[in-house]
């Protein structure tokens, strides 16, 4: 059917390598480096669904590149390529950040959307995908056997991330470096260079935490215009995202999730005032729920007026960093009427028997499909089913509510499928609009106005339910079958960067 003869001069001989060892650690390392790559690159390109897709495309293109080049790779090239790979990969987060910082300082940030995805196939994933076809096609092993071993390596890589990924980048890179050094050993590198590389790796891994924090702060100061002298207090990858806590020279602290600001300065607090403090003061809820932790300032504001506040957050790293670095705003160490549940909010709402007087949301905007589900009609309907009579949902519309704003209109449309009454507040201080939704709102427009003024908010607009319905017009609710909103937001976001 097809010619299977591959010139053996391009292959490896059994006497010089251990094929199974190479593909096993290759499989494991591909998983480990993908973990680092996706989180780092998604952050650098200010993660949206399309950015995540772009990163994934780059990664898999790299695999194809490696497969395609396999028959052209000579034995003598493998050790130098492995050494280069070791250096480039262990320093990847640092030099990727510095490249983007340099581009932005030249006013060329948008080029990062081309440069980084173009670099990934060349320097990240292609190296490891060379081995399997090279070894099989040169007769060093049978495909079913070597592919099975590579799959086992991949399974080990996933288990390392699951069991030890929470310990941080340094730990992941320890395993990564060990894997690549063992591949080098299998390729029969001379002992002296191998020992030298091992020592260099150890030294680098000891320096890495400092270099990581330094380059992180440089990137944030450049891209987010944080004040000079800003330092990184905490930076780590979670199972879901990159979590960064930074501190300015004045002591002000910022929380970033995948490079997007989640809390920082006055604007962030005003969001928590409108979605947390004001409805809590008006309702005096016995039982309140906050969806999404963030800085947990919102939960603290609600706790001042509530019997019990539960925060449900999917990412334990966000909770831990918030407890550790934002105690001055969330007062977690002193409040005793609060609890935290680590769970997916959709799963939690579907399975809890608790009912609430107030549910407030503190979730990222619908930049990705997963976060968009937290603005869907079905999710709001599930929340409505867990509200006590007169209970209120306070939700973020994530943009300024207006007839020409698709995002806020569609979120409001989702709310209208679940609630009879929806009042929207556009806050000048926060720059976004927010909604109070209920089947029977226990407070009126005048009460909201008074509370907003008392909070120091001067420039605001309030839309009552008929006005909300009029502005929403024919906008479709967000559902699991109409996630085009994510595509639009992602495209607008990238377009903004180009402009």
């Amino acid at each position, binding site marked *: 059917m097809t010619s299977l003869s*591959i010139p053996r001069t391009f292959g490896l001989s059994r006497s010089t390598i251990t094929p199974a060892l190479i593909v096993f650690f290759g499989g494991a390392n591909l998983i480990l480096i993908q973990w680092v790559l996706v989180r780092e690159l998604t952050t650098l390109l200010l993660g949206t669904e399309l950015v995540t897709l772009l990163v994934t495309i780059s990664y898999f293109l790299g695999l194809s590149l490696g497969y*395609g080049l396999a028959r052209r790779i000579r034995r003598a090239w493998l050790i130098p390529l492995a050494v280069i790979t070791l250096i480039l990969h262990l320093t990847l987060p640092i030099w990727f950040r510095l490249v983007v910082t340099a581009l932005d300082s030249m006013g060329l940030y948008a080029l990062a959307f081309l440069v980084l995805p173009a670099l990934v196939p060349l320097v990240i994933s292609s190296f490891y995908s060379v081995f399997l076809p090279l070894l*099989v096609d040169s007769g060093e092993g049978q495909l079913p056997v070597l592919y099975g071993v590579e799959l086992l390596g991949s399974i080990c890589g*996933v288990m390392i991330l699951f069991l030890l990924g929470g310990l941080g980048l340094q730990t992941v890179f320890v395993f990564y470096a060990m894997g690549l050094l063992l591949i080098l050993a299998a390729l029969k590198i001379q002992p002296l260079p191998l020992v030298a590389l091992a020592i260099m790796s150890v030294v680098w891994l000891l320096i890495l935490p400092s270099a990581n924090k330094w380059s992180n702060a440089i990137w944030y100061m450049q891209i987010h215009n944080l004040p000079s002298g800003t330092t990184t207090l905490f930076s780590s990858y979670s*199972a879901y995202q990159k979590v960064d806590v930074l501190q300015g020279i004045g002591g002000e602290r910022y929380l970033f999730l995948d490079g997007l600001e989640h809390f920082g300065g006055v604007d962030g607090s005003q969001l928590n005032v409108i979605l947390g403090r004001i409805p809590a003061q008006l309702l005096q809820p016995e039982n309140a729920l906050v969806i999404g932790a963030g800085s947990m300032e919102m939960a603290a504001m609600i706790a001042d007026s509530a019997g019990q506040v539960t925060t449900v957050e999917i990412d334990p790293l966000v909770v831990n960093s918030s407890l550790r670095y934002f105690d001055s705003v969330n007062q977690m160490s002193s409040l005793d009427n609060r609890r935290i549940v680590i769970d997916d909010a959709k799963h939690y709402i579907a399975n809890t028997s608790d009912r609430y007087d107030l549910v407030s949301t503190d979730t990222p905007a619908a930049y990705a499909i997963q976060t968009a589900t937290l603005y869907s009609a079905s999710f709001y309907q599930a929340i409505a089913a867990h509200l006590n009579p007169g209970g209120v949902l306070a939700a973020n519309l994530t943009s300024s509510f207006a007839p020409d704003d698709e995002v806020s209109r569609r979120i409001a449309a989702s709310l209208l499928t679940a609630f009879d009454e929806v009042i929207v507040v556009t806050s000048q201080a926060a720059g976004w609009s927010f909604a109070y939704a209920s089947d029977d709102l226990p407070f009126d427009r005048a009460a909201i106005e008074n509370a907003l003024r008392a909070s120091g908010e001067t420039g605001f607009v309030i839309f009552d339910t008929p006005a909300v319905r009029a502005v929403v017009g024919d906008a479709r609710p967000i559902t699991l079958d109409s996630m085009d909103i994510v595509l639009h937001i992602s495209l607008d976001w990238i377009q903004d960067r180009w402009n």
Partner: protein
Amino acid sequence: MELTRRFYPALTGLLLGLLQTGLFFQLTFTLSSSFRTFLLVTLCWLIGSAVGVTYAAKLRFPLEIFIGLALIAYFACAILLKILPFGTQVWPVYAVLIALTGIYPGVFFARMAAFYTARDLFLYENNGFLIGLILGTLLFMMFGRVILFIAPVFVAVMVVKTGDIRHNRAYDFTRSADYPPRPAG
């Protein structure tokens, strides 16, 4: 014929990309978005593939049987999610279903090794897989969940038809003199 030769692994990759995307979206929407779900899909798929490549490939069933098994397991996941949304207590069932879906790629690679160079096989399959990931994600965002159900079936039919393109079951190795697979090279 050369085009068909390349097309077949690419189509298979496309099918696998769609199945994996579909499983991930379905489970994160109506089971849980937590890391456990990601782990469930990734690990069980890999384990299924390992079983497929090392053991199931030796069974004397035609490849279509494994495609059918993958689709049945895929739709069983969808039905179970519909019956029991956010029912994480039955995750072992999902684990088995995902592993059953993952057996097909393992069998595919093991059997195709006799007919393709590893380089060609992985290259074309990976290209198709990549297209499957892209199409699965973009089409889902544009047209909703219906894509997750229609596209895999449509592509699976194409895979079977392409494998049988000359009506002599050119790629059905269990019926050919080349089966069981022999070492390449």
